[in-house]
């Protein structure tokens, strides 16, 4: 099992390399480098000679292939460069922010799974009922919400008006601070999971082998427990994996809204400050995380569905 895991993780590397290349190339095209950005904002006027020196220092004058090669080599050794802004290693900047982001993302996903999957299940077992209709209306509404707007509304209601929860920040990292951002972030995936689960369960309920199970004289409840559950789970697991991607995208905005000290807000700040190494580092990390999650999901898939095991 461990060997398979390692092998599959190794498969990520080519994709990752390609992503690094794309991101790097994208940002090398950036017309304004960090230094001229400072000039643009008008905040600091730097002596052109000083600018020249800074450019040389940051290696911005080397030809593109050299810069790329250097970047790849450094990255492979775990060095993501130095932040333009704070002169600290990017790895350190990201390292500080990793845990809050992970907490947020996983809590949001847990919320989405715990609420969304059972909801979809119940809706499918009673199609056309009141529960079903309300759940699905709720689900499609959840998908149509702007997650940061939801966050804003939640913030207004629970933090400012009712004063039950803090309105921003990480605080001690406890549940009180985590609650609002996690819910705002988790509603979208929850809605999607509810819908996907419902569709999967309905599809399985109509399958031939479920008819066989019924012909055995099984109660409907046993049919669901023994035959429907696992088969529906397959599709649900795939969706969860894919959802992590959009979750991380949305997390960027939610983190900024709630001033959550995670990678998302770091990314946004760095973009504004034209701190290219940090931007690249953040994106790289996010993509790696996503790919790892998908690999794990793939493996979970194999554990559930024996048809794939023997390939």
């Amino acid at each position: 099992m461990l060997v398979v895991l390692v092998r599959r993780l190794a498969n990520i590397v080519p994709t990752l390399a390609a992503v690094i290349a794309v991101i790097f190339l994208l940002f090398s095209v950036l017309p304004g480098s960090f230094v001229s950005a400072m000039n643009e904002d008008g905040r600091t006027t730097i002596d052109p000679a000083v600018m020249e020196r800074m450019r040389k220092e940051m290696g911005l004058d080397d030809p593109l292939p050299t810069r790329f090669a250097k970047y790849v080599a450094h990255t492979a050794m775990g060095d993501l460069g130095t932040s333009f802004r704070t002169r600290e290693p990017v790895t350190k900047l990201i390292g500080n922010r990793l845990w809050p982001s992970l907490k947020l993302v996983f809590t949001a996903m847990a919320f989405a799974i715990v609420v969304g999957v059972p909801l979809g299940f119940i809706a499918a077992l009673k199609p056309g009922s009141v529960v079903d209709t309300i759940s699905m209306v709720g689900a499609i509404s959840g998908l149509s919400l702007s997650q940061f707007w939801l966050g804003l509304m939640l913030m207004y209601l629970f933090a400012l008006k009712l004063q039950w929860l803090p309105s921003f920040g990480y605080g001690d990292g406890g549940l009180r601070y985590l609650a609002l951002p996690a819910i705002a972030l988790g509603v979208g995936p929850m809605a999607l999971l509810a819908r996907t689960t419902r569709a999967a369960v309905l599809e399985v309920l109509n399958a031939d082998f479920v008819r066989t199970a019924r012909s055995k004289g099984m109660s409907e409840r046993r049919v669901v427990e023994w035959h429907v559950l696992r088969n529906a789970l397959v599709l649900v697991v795939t969706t969860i994996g894919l959802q992590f991607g959009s979750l991380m995208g949305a997390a960027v905005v939610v983190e900024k809204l709630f001033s959550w000290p995670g990678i998302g807000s770091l990314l946004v700040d760095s973009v504004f400050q034209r701190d290219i190494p940090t931007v690249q580092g953040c994106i790289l990390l996010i993509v790696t995380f996503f790919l790892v999650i998908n690999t794990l999901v793939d493996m979970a898939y194999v554990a559930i569905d024996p048809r794939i095991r023997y390939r």
Partner: protein
Amino acid sequence: MRGGLSLWVGGTLVAVALFVAIAAPLIALTDPVMGANLMNAEIPPGLEFPFGTDAQGRDIYSRIVYGARISLTVGIVSQVCNSLIGVTLGLTAGYWGGLWDDLVSGITNLMLAIPSLIFALAIMAILGPGLVSLLIALGLTSWSYSCRIARAQVLSLKSQGYIQAARILGYGDLRIMFTQVLPNILGPLIVIATLGMGGAILAEAALSFLGLGIRPPFPSWGSMLSEAREQITTAPWLSVFPGLAIFVTVLGLNLLGDGLRDILDPQSTTRRGA
């Protein structure tokens, strides 16, 4: 959701949104950008200003109405762009196979590895804020799904022999693609495009909210929300209406897409992304 009801409710909402966007100059009360009057700053919703005014005294209602133009433009244009790219790549990749297919599949996998909002963010970072950059960023980052579907469809038709039969009849490649393959994809494609528009509108709102999309003073719903944030305690209505507008429009598109799916794509080729 029952197909019929979704279709009608969604269609109505979308039609309303379209109407508002097109008829904006006629139904707005003031100029959204220039109609600032500090004397009217931060008035709650009432008779004179149905949705209230913001910190600069601009009428929120008018700004929302004009904002519909931005949101719908972004939604439609970016989605058309994505569909064109996705279908072209997917169709040709499935049809010709070989190296081209490998290349397209590789790029698609790459695209799918990067969350689309983050990719769009990166592109916006390079291009700078503004409507055009937004259209480029959103139009170039969400085509992977339609590409996959188009490609799968071509492969399925291939395995059923349709394409081979057409070739034997002497049809040229382009003709086959247009007359045989395209009609089969159209249904799922329309569904994906409709749902994608909703996604594009949400993405635009997010990017504008962050300050990377449409910048103030232009009345994008997202940028209105970023301005509203400061005044959340003093003028909460500023946060409600733009978000509500986004919600109603995207809901309409989602319902419409669902309803269309029941008609155009009953075998649920597109259900994976719901």
